[in-house]
């Protein structure tokens, strides 16, 4: 077995994975290849460190339909590792290819290492309560969340091998229609520098205006708990922060009226400073916070917005 | 829990817990603050078969037995004593009387609607100056042709004003005192029946209590429960059946309060260690846990007597007597452990303290349980 391969339908993520792939290359002494649907990115991948680029060429615009083709390449190249960009499409494709080749697959790896001729990964389990270390026998498939690694920088003068595989992916009986981008009302909270999160402590939808006022004062975006987005529908579901929602990596996260279930905290704990405001001193959010005010957000938020204004 | 609950009873308990966490916990303190009857929750309880849980399937109930029913009362009480009181007055008092003492026709006419939640029940016994079981009643029911005409006042009627069906106790032979009392099923919208005022309460706020005025209220003789003169017997039996449910209510409130005190005791640091590490606190907790354990067993046992149609009056009275004592002492200790924290108005412990007092005094004027127990012993 030889070769570390990378696949993502998103070329930016593929370049992030190249950083992980190059780390493995250093420890495994194997070449790094990129499987891509984007033929025009071949030179960029090579510049960023790819030794090989395999371009999948087919008529089907549905990325998931290339699972079989990815599996074929991985199999033919006798890959020892396949890193897949952990978008939902990527996870779908990786599981499908993994089933076809009867390999192990780790979802959402936080770290990937080559140890004792196997791949060792860490990932979150129990809703973020714990970290599990797993060993995968080779060939090992791993999906990696977007933005886990920085994009591998382009270098000049690199050479690589490029080959194209013609793919016949006329999937039977499936048709895709109405592909509709989700229009975000604000900026993407997963990349925002400052985020104000709102939870059940708000009694009415209109009261969210207080959080908006604070967000305005500090230049933040608004996020929320799963309950606010999916039960109350006060905010669109793209605003929902948590293990199955958005992950916030802000310099400042302010949680207002959020009790702080572990599933929510997982979504914010990569933030630099966390501030919590809640009436219940025993709420778990305070254990996850750097600074907290125990009190009614209806009193605290307007004061805080006033104090931060113009700062 | 070691009491041998059947798998079905455990599943009912678990499902009730899921229900109360979803629907009752979020509103419990709000209905206490605002003293509002939670009609949406009552409707949800109806949809989930809580209202007719132990009542016969043929009349729209679930035939799950009285023990399953007290299990859900216990679960509800852990979140809200007030919601438990609404259900107890509906199911253990009003519907109980119709089911236990009604004719097939009366059951057909009233139980399906009481089980489905289309109608809520209430039990109208207490009068100004007349304590339950103590006589001095003044509401009269005069026979006129095929009807009775009711006149007088009732007070502290739980679910009063929000109920659709009242089981009303009135004197058909005033000269015979309580032996001349009879029980009637009275529709809430009958002409002449009005609510003169609702009563603000210390606890169990959200279970509305009202004063009812009967002014020439005409009730068909078809709505007489049992026969003339058996009203007191009906009332006493229903109150004892309700005592078992109130025992479950006390156990539920006390358990929730104790859980809160345990959590607080582990977190609150004084003199460098959690207060739960102090022997005085441990003694209080141990005593309340023991009392709750024993009370729960007694409640379940008395409920299973009712379920199996065995004599239960003495045991029900014992439940009332015992849960009354241990419930109040548990809450006094919980507030002691939590100190200023538990004593603050917005804290759950102070609500439990007020609610448990209400659960204890309902159906238990003065020495009523003791009388029942002694009478049985000396018979």
């Amino acid at each position, binding site marked *: 077995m030889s070769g570390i391969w990378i696949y993502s339908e998103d070329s930016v993520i593929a370049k992030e994975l190249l950083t992980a792939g190059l780390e493995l290359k250093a420890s495994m002494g194997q070449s790094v290849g990129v499987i891509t649907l984007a033929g025009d990115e071949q030179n960029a991948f090579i510049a960023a460190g790819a030794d090989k680029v395999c371009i999948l060429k087919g008529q089907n615009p549905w990325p998931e339909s290339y*699972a079989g083709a990815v599996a074929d390449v991985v199999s033919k190249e006798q890959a020892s590792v396949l890193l897949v960009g952990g978008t*939902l*499409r990527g*996870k*779908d494709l990786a*599981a499908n290819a*993994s089933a*076809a080749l009867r*390999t*192990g*697959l780790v*979802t959402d790896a936080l770290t990937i290492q080559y140890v004792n001729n196997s791949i*060792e990964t860490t990932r*979150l*389990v*129990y*809703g973020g*309560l*714990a970290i*599990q*270390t797993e*060993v995968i*026998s080779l060939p090992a498939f791993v999906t990696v969340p977007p933005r886990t690694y920085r994009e591998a920088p382009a270098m000049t003068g690199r050479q690589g091998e490029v080959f194209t595989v013609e793919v016949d992916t006329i999937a039977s*009986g*499936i*048709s*895709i*229609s*109405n*592909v509709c981008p*989700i229009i975000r009302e604000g900026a993407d909270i997963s990349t925002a520098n400052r985020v104000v999160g709102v939870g059940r402590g708000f009694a009415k939808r209109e009261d969210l205006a207080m959080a908006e006022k604070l967000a305005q004062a500090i230049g933040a975006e608004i996020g929320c708990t799963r309950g606010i987005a*999916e039960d109350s529908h006060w905010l669109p*579901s793209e605003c929902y922060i948590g293990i*199955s929602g958005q992950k916030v990596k802000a*310099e*400042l996260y302010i949680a207002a009226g959020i009790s702080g279930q*572990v599933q929510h905290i997982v979504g914010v704990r990569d933030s630099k*400073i966390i*501030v919590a405001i809640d009436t219940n001193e025993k709420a778990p959010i305070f*254990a996850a*916070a*750097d*600074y*907290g*005010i*125990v009190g009614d957000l209806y009193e*605290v938020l307007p*004061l*805080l917005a006033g*104090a931060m204004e113009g700062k | 829990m070691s009491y041998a609950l059947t798998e*079905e009873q455990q*599943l*009912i308990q678990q*499902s009730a817990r*899921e229900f109360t966490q979803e629907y009752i916990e979020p509103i419990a303190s709000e209905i206490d603050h605002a003293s509002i009857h939670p009609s949406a929750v009552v409707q949800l309880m109806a*949809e989930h*078969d809580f209202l007719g849980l132990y009542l016969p399937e043929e009349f729209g109930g*679930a035939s*799950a037995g009285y023990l*399953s029913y007290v299990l859900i009362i216990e679960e509800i009480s852990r979140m809200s004593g007030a919601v438990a009181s609404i259900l107890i007055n509906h199911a253990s008092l009003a519907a109980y009387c119709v089911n236990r003492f009604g004719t097939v026709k009366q059951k057909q006419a009233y139980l399906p609607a009481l089980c489905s939640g289309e109608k809520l029940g209430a039990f109208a016994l207490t009068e100004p100056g007349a304590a339950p079981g103590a006589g001095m009643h003044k509401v009269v029911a005069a026979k006129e042709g095929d009807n009775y005409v009711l006149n007088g006042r009732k007070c502290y009627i739980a679910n009063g004003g929000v109920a659709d069906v009242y089981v009303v106790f009135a004197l058909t032979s005033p000269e015979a005192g309580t032996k001349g009392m009879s029980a009637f099923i009275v529709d809430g919208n009958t002409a002449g029946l009005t609510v003169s005022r609702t009563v603000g309460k210390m606890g169990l706020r959200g279970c509305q209590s009202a004063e009812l005025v009967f002014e020439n209220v005409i009730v068909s003789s078809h709505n007489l429960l049992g026969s003339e003169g058996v009203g007191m017997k009906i009332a006493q039996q229903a109150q004892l059946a309700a005592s078992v449910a109130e025992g479950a209510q006390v156990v539920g409130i006390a358990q929730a309060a104790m859980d809160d005190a345990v959590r607080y005791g582990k977190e609150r640091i004084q003199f460098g260690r959690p207060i739960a590490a102090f022997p005085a606190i441990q003694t209080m907790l141990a005593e309340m846990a023991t009392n709750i354990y024993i009370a729960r067993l007694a409640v379940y046992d008395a409920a299973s007597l009712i379920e199996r149609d065995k004599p239960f009056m003495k045991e029900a009275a014992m439940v009332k007597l015992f849960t009354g004592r241990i419930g109040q002492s548990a809450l006094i200790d919980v507030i002691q452990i939590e100190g200023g924290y538990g004593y603050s108005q917005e804290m759950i412990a102070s609500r439990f303290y007020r609610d448990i007092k209400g659960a204890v005094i309902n159906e238990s004027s003065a020495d009523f349980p003791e009388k029942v127990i002694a009478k049985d012993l000396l018979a």
Partner: protein
Amino acid sequence: MPKVLVCYKWVLDEQDIKINLGDLSLDSSRAKYKISDYDKNAIEEATLLIEAHGGNVDALTFGSDKVKQSLKDALSRGPGSVQWIGDAAFEQADAFVTANVLAAAIRKNGTYDLILCGEGSADSYNQQVAPRLAALLEIPAITFVQKLCMDGSRTIATRKLGDCTEVVEVEGPAVISVLPEINKPRIPSLKQVMAAAKKPSQEIKLVELELSADDIIPKTVSVSVKGYIMNRKNILFKEASHADNVAKLVASLAQEGLC
């Protein structure tokens, strides 16, 4: 009328799991089990489908010997019957093994019009079983579905994929994984809880599935599970005057260079 299968997992309730602060090991001795939250959405969606179209829903689960405790809970939420595989092999099973076992059990039963799963499990959240099952059964997978309709033998599903939604139509059987937003699972009524006891459940022994030894050897092996501990400053301001609290907070944020 559709014949629907829903797969679910019986998992430890993560809210009950404590972290031992010494060695960061997990203490699940007081943890209860539950049907994985996302699978409750799958059960609800399957139930809604047959309430709208007729037909029936069967449930299928693979777990340890403890999985038997889940049967009536699952049945009270809508399915008409349940099959279960309770085997010690589950303790080490990864998604590879789980999918092999479930696929073998499904093949044994014949065909279904739709097979529903949650998008992932509440404990390990691998998000693999649905696409793996589809690959093994050689039928399409439609994953991450937020809206699902059936029209005769066609299934129309709206997927939500982070930055876009797309409508996928498929003719014939498929495996669907559902997102939590697809519905709000009902809390069963007590009559439904009681009726669950009368519904059929059937045990399938792992050996009956005639899997090869290789099919039940996991490809990923867990070597450790450690509690995740955060190091935060945990400074609380709880004076009576919120003006003071806010002033202190703002001063702290200024020190952090945040205002």
